[in-house]
């Protein structure tokens, strides 16, 4: 391994690279899916390879290979240099990187229970027992999934960085789909689209209390079929932590990615309304809005010790008391705006060049109880767990739907409602926040499937939030 890295860096330098780095990754993953009483699939995946990133003639090049050998190290570096030289044909200015501290480090991730030490048949038996709990007439699809991965990554650069990191991830989730022949209702636990994930061992699965929630979501899916439709109109909204995760992701995480802001993702993911002149000058939300990007949160899926440029993990404010104060950045974009690199460059594997990705984007807790939040609502809804999501390419106009909702009238929770949706313009919405639940309600949701970039990269991120109350939100969408 050492020789592959050395030959790649040596070759890159010899061929004119002013900057070069190598990432070598080995990853083992196990996925189990159970559906309607049967094991739908069990798969173990192994992946290994390396990528070389270079700056030559002031322009970027990247090449990668599945074949980890010293000879291939030279070949991959040679190709990366050729690609960089071609990039330089359209160069406007040289790519330059902000200076950072250079580290040599080895970071292990201690877990209580190695997820790969639990026998597969034990995991399958457990999932089948969960599936059984969700069985009931009217439930047409019961599904559950588990995912485990263990990754070993080495990062080395011409600047002298040499960082080895271990990463272990566990995740699981349940879903029940009910129908009365006319419509479909879905309930998930603890969240939709695969459940919850964390940088922990199998103890994370045990802590999730899946058995205690399987029957509840089954019954809620059936109850939703008979529930009245969510109302439409302008009203107050209390959003639970799992839907807040999506709200933070789409309307805070993505628009604060500095590569988007600078137009680098325009052809696919779009740009952002949070343009550079707004930094430090734009009232993003109300004074209750304190949002951080924090890669140092223990166990959170969006956390790490060093990013894929060797920048040490940090916590920074994106929004402080409502003011927009920070971007997610890379060494290159930080240099362009004269900012300090905050460590958000990550790649989803050895065959991808790092791009700016969310870390753990969290709304800091407030000081209210849920009862106090509800008591302050005359007419409104309490909603949670995402079902549908869409936002425009500048991250302004959004419309989200959740699996479940409850009416609130005169400060008290009333009936369950189905198909709740809400929409708004991002900064108007965040300016309407007037209360955040305290730390006791705070939950972090690990999201394993944030898609961005061309070529597409899927990244593990996370979002922490308590319940949050928003005033005068447009609820419901008239489409009939």
């Amino acid at each position: 391994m050492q020789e592959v890295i050395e030959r790649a860096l040596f070759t890159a330098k010899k061929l004119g690279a002013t900057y070069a780095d190598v990432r070598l990754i080995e990853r083992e993953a196990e996925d189990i899916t159970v559906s309607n009483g049967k094991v739908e699939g069990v798969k173990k995946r192994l992946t290994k390879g390396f990528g070389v990133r270079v700056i030559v003639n002031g322009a970027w090049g990247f090449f990668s290979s599945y074949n980890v050998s010293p000879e291939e190290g030279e070949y991959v570096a040679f190709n990366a240099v050729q690609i960089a030289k071609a990039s330089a044909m359209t160069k406007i200015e040289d790519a330059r990187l902000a200076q950072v501290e250079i580290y040599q480090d080895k970071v292990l991730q201690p877990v209580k229970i190695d997820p790969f030490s639990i026998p597969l048949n034990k995991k399958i038996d457990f999932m089948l027992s969960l599936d059984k709990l969700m069985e009931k007439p009217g439930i047409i699809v019961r599904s559950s999934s588990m995912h485990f991965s263990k990754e070993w990554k080495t990062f080395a650069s011409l600047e002298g960085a040499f960082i080895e990191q271990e990463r272990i991830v566990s995740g699981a989730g349940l879903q029940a789909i009910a129908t009365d022949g006319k419509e479909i209702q879905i309930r998930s636990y603890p969240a939709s689209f695969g459940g919850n994930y964390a940088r922990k061992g199998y103890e994370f699965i045990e802590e999730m209390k899946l058995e205690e929630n399987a029957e509840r979501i089954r019954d809620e899916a059936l109850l939703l079929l008979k529930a009245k439709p969510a109302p439409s109109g302008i009203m107050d909204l209390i959003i639970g932590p799992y839907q807040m995760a999506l709200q933070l992701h789409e309307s805070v995480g993505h628009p604060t990615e500095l590569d988007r802001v600078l137009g680098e993702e325009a052809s696919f993911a779009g740009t952002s309304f949070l343009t550079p002149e707004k930094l430090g000058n734009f009232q993003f939300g109300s004074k209750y809005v304190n949002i951080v990007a924090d890669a140092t949160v223990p166990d959170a899926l969006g956390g790490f010790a060093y990013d894929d440029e060797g920048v040490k993990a940090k916590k920074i404010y994106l929004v402080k008391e409502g003011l927009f104060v920070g971007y997610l950045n890379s060494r290159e974009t930080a240099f362009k705006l004269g900012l300090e690199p905050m460590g958000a460059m990550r790649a989803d594997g050895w065959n991808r060049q790092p791009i700016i990705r969310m870390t753990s984007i969290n709304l800091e807790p407030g000081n209210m109880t849920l009862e106090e939040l509800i008591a302050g609502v005359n007419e409104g809804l309490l909603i949670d767990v995402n079902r549908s999501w869409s936002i425009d390419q500048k991250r302004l106009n959004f419309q989200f739907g959740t699996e479940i909702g409850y009416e609130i009238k005169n400060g008290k929770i009333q009936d369950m409602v189905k198909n709740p949706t809400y929409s708004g313009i991002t900064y108007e919405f965040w300016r309407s926040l007037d209360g955040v639940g305290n730390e006791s309600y705070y939950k972090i949701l690990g999201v394993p499937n944030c898609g961005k970039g061309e070529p597409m990269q899927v990244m593990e991120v996370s979002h922490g939030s308590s319940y949050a109350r928003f005033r005068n939100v447009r609820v419901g969408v008239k489409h009939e």
Partner: protein
Amino acid sequence: MNKERILQILNYVVKNAEADQVEAVLMGGETYLTGFANNYIHRNVGEESYELNIRIVLGKKVGASSTSDLSDEAINEAIRNAINIAKLQKDNPDFVSLPQNYPGDNEFIFVSQVPDAETRASMVKKLVDASRKYGFISSGKFETEKFQLAVKNSLGVERYMERTVSTLKNIVMTDTSSGFSQESKQDFREINIESILEESLEVARMAQNPIEISPGKYEVVLSPYAVEEFLSSMKYLSLNAKNIEEGTSFMKGHFGEKLFPDHISLYDDGLSNETLKMGFDFEGVPKKKVYFVKEGVILDVLYDSFYAYKEGKDPTGHSLPQPNSLGAYPMNFFVHGGTSSVEEMISHVERGLYVQRFWYTNPMEPTSLLITGMTRDGLFLIENGKITKPVKHMRFTESILNAFKNCLEISNISKIIYEDGAVTTAPYMRIKDFKFTSVTEF
């Protein structure tokens, strides 16, 4: 990697894995992407990568594994992993068999040259230079790939495919607008850069300084890009046997019924000349042409081997790599073309909207296929049969089923749109009463 080495690996797996049935699938190849933004190349990447997928059958127990490391040691470990998983599995009573060897060609080669880094950069340079000349900003990608897929199983299947596909995409931005164009070809030399430039520049120019109009019902003319994005949810929610069994498809209970007008026909055809061809699926089953809707009548769905054998049918050649919770998937989807020219379609609209592209569409309800999303990169008012003004972008919330029922006209030309390895051949569509539910700020 050459074909011989690929087949050698598959032979090794099938020969050495001790099981009732064995399947080995090797896919991958070379991919290059030259990404540009702000009128220069900002991301330029290449990779050579493969994935070996192994499926092991022991009675009614199935185990699967994969590896991207193709050393002997890693392949042996992958075989061991799949066998161990199968041994520790529960019986799946619905599992019958891996696919039999269905008649058909064993080799499909749809390839041309893969351009080198300098050629890729030269193509991009033409786009960015043109945008710069007008004071506009170009962003996009030139992506080119040589994809290899080989499948061998212990029931006699042995198939090999090589395909090249190149895609050039350009978004031109002005201070107040953007314009979009994209083209995918098997041979990169057939990509018409001038046509991409003309379309993206023209739309961006015309879309400047948009006016705001109220949301509501509008007659629309959707471009092929918009049609592809609008229908994308339908392809994984409705069109396979799993969707029917689970009851999440609008087709369930409606086979043989006429739900849509005569001019609505939807099908998948991997061997048509009007798609980027694919000879067989990820189980090695040759592609069949399958009509989902023919002249408005609900006809059929896709089957991978699991659902086909469970229901006593033959698989249709639409399996994704297994195991896969999506079920079979249309990799070469077609919306059947009509008879109208685009100009005629626009001339028939008294007051409506022309949509160049949709963005971030997602389903709100699976069975009614109620979809929401935004317009992007060109939205225009049509008045008295002519495009008159650019319009600020809007959110639509519409059911795909309603849109088919309300489809008034389909164009006589179609465009091949390649996204994430799958192809849609889409025409322009004129649809009445298309619902827009809110506006955005630009």
